[in-house]
């Protein structure tokens, strides 16, 4: 029974009720601190955010033990006992006002409010979270099989476990006017360029968004040229990739609720690398890196090249192949331009359908699309087999891109280049490609040239982008990322 049988006085408790009015998950419980006849207090918590077991075991039980509060006649005295360790919950703090108490409730605390308005918050965050699982978007062939989850602390733990270095710093920020998403700026002190770090923090703090619930809020707000089709923030769900980049001198960003890490500065060459490069023989890794560059080029240009050659420059096709194309095209009713665009469009539709549907259904759609529709389209002479081959090859090359955003950019640009090829043949392709190169050469990410080391960087580091050197001859880190380097 509470003191005098009264509920705690109005004030902070009422303010909390008012703050969470119309919130069905706000729960309160009146207790007597120190057992029957003790000080009346009200315990506030948000159902779902707190662990009921932890609250009972580590908060309620000690609070109701008479021995712990013997002699504590006032709320202040009781609060002092609590802070001194009478309640052994690992994280307890005084909430000076209703706003602080409300924030604590939103952060998974329960808040004990005495009649005089003294309030103490105890962290009893629920442990309900998705277990650390394998990455879904970035397949691991050989390497650690963990992936970031939605909980920031788990993510920082994953990073800490991989880099047990005192110089690993995790600076906390809060983003989003409404969501107030906890965000961490992760870097290796002494390894990271201070200018890049300062700029990353400045841009993060400058994010003027109500919510940080999707990755685009971060990537688009901190990128140098957010309207570019090329990604300028490296996004990964793999902690090993995240850590490798931290060790290169990049700045990492982790946000609560987002199961991925963000890395800046990003360069084009970085998007062509995968952590497996460090897990396989250096010659194989170098070959695969070169293959990725070739795949990027083919994914971008192959359909446009085919359209240009088939429509305007037939002399470029070897005579036997040209004859095969002519024979295959005899009964196709559509012009080359139309059938190529049609196939590209169909390919995008199939890809999107396969991506959005649940896994088994998605696979079925892919099989129906690729095998049945593709084959039927060729047999029905709706499209010629060469176009199917070209579009499929280009699509496969697009899938080789390690980064989803880079692959998506290539998909859009592929259409534009095909249109340029339709309008002006190889001249159009050359113009389009030149404009892409011009755009890429002009991009920067946090002061680092996007095409570094191919353009704007130091030429002698070119091999680092294209090859993976043996571990015993591992080259320096990118010069632009070295500490003290400012542009």
């Amino acid at each position: 029974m509470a003191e005098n049988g009264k509920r705690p006085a109005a004030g902070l408790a009422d303010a909390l009720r008012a703050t969470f009015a119309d919130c069905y998950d706000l729960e309160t419980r009146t207790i007597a601190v120190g057992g029957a006849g003790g000080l009346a207090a009200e315990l506030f918590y948000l159902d779902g955010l707190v662990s009921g077991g932890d609250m009972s075991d580590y908060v309620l039980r000690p609070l109701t033990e008479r021995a712990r509060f013997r002699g504590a006649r006032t709320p202040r005295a009781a609060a002092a006992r609590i802070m001194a360790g009478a309640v052994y919950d690992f994280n307890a703090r005084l909430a000076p006002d209703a706003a602080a108490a409300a924030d604590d409730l939103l952060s998974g605390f329960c808040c004990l409010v005495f009649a005089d308005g003294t309030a103490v918050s105890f962290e009893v965050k629920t442990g309900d979270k998705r277990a650390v699982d394998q990455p879904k978007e970035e397949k691991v062939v050989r390497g650690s099989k963990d992936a970031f989850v939605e909980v920031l602390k788990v993510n920082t733990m994953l990073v800490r476990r991989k880099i047990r270095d005192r110089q690993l710093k995790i600076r906390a920020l809060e983003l989003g006017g409404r969501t107030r998403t906890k965000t961490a700026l992760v870097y290796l002190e002494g390894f990271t360029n201070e200018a890049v770090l300062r700029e990353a923090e400045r841009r993060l703090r400058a994010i003027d968004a109500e919510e940080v619930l999707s990755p685009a809020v971060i990537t688009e707000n901190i990128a140098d040229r957010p309207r570019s089709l090329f990604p300028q923030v490296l996004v990964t769900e793999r902690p090993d990739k995240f850590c490798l980049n931290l060790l290169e001198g990049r700045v990492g960003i982790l946000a609560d609720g987002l199961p991925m890490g963000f890395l800046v500065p990003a360069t084009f060459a970085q998007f062509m690398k995968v952590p497996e490069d460090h897990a396989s023989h250096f010659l194989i890794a170098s070959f695969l890196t070169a293959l990725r560059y070739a795949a990027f080029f083919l994914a971008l240009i192959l359909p446009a090249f085919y359209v240009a050659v088939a429509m305007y420059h037939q002399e470029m096709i070897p005579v036997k192949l040209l004859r095969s194309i002519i024979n295959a095209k005899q009964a196709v009713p559509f012009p080359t331009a139309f059938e190529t665009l049609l196939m590209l469009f169909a390919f995008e539709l199939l890809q999107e359908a396969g991506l959005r549907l649940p896994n088994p259904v998605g696979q079925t759609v892919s099989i129906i699309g690729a095998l049945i529709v593709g084959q039927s389209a060729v047999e029905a002479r709706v499209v010629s087999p060469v176009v199917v081959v070209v579009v499929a090859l280009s699509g496969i090359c697009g899938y080789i891109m390690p980064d989803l955003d880079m692959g998506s950019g290539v998909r859009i640009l592929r259409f534009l280049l095909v249109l340029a090829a339709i309008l002006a043949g190889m001249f159009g392709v050359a113009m389009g490609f030149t404009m892409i190169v011009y755009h890429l050469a002009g991009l920067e990410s946090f002061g680092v040239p996007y095409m570094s080391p191919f353009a704007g960087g130091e030429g002698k580091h070119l091999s680092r982008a294209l090859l993976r050197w043996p571990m015993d001859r591992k080259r320096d880190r990118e010069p632009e990322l070295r500490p003290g380097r400012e542009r």
Partner: protein
Amino acid sequence: MKIRALFIIGVALALLTGCAGAGVFADYREVEQLEIIRTIGIDKGPEGVTVTADTGVEEDGRAPKLFRTAAPTLSAALEQLQETPRGRRMVFAHTEQVVIGETAARAGLAGYLDYIERATEMRIGTGVFIVRDGTAEDLLAACAGEGSSAADMLLFLKTEIRNMGCGFVYTCGDIAAGLASEGCALAQAVERAPGETVTEEERAMVRPAGFAVLAEGALAGYLTEEESRGAALLLGKVERDDMTAAAESGTAALSFRGAGMRVRPLFLGGSLDRLSVAVRTEAAVKEASEGLTLTAAETRRALAQDLAARETERAAAAVARSQAMGLDFLGLCAAAERASPLRFGALRDRGAADIGTMTVEVTVSAAVRRTFDVADPFSVRGKGA
């Protein structure tokens, strides 16, 4: 702003190069509307130039299509082929060879070469054949049948003739360059199997007929087979040729290749004494007759000497023909000038280096390999002689 600037620059560039708008679309053609021409035959006719276009054997083995037209000029004739309403546009970009009838070649082929060099669609790497004692039209027509065409036969000949040792297919570019620099050039001559004794199948086959000598833009004559073999050896165009050489103890079939000639002008007292032309060949024993002791040094030496003597004879015949015609189609003077740019170059500048009057000494040296004893292959490691 940047995008706008780029767009303007792009449009301006497109306009400046003349590749914009209708200019581009004028070249547009759907691939299925094309007829690929692989060989063009050119003859002299009453209307000027008679052109026969050969598509080569179709994908499914059907006989090639032949299109014929006549016009005052080659360009007009080719245009006329396009105008014939067949529902297909002819593409000459894949023309692999040009066959010129003897009459047309004698009348002058410089104009045809000029057209090919200027045409944006055709390539200067197109091989040139001269039809000996015949017309291109007849040759193309005779070769056209189920699964066979002159285009395919000539293409095969183009790659295989180096293994026959009797010729080489020069391209439009080679011939035009030779005519421009030396005033003469060689072209591969071809013919159909002659006579009534051969079968129909043999009649429909093309075979090499030695080199045709071109001078002043027209056909000046032909080299005999031996002269052609000598010329091919001197010019380093023999990848492989076969010959039977004799030694005292028997004969051996040899397969040999030439390494091209080395020309040195030799001066005596300030004036040109002679041109020394040296060629080195390497031969491998393909088959030895019974009793031939290849392991013996004197046998190998005898085989090499026999090979060298016969090849010297061929090369000398080619040089003699060149001197007799007064045409340096073997490029001896140009090679001598490269070897002695100052002294021989001065001679040429003065017009004193006339191939017809200078003394040319031809030497062919030979080495014979693969001379091991089959019964005991480790006995001798086939040292050359």
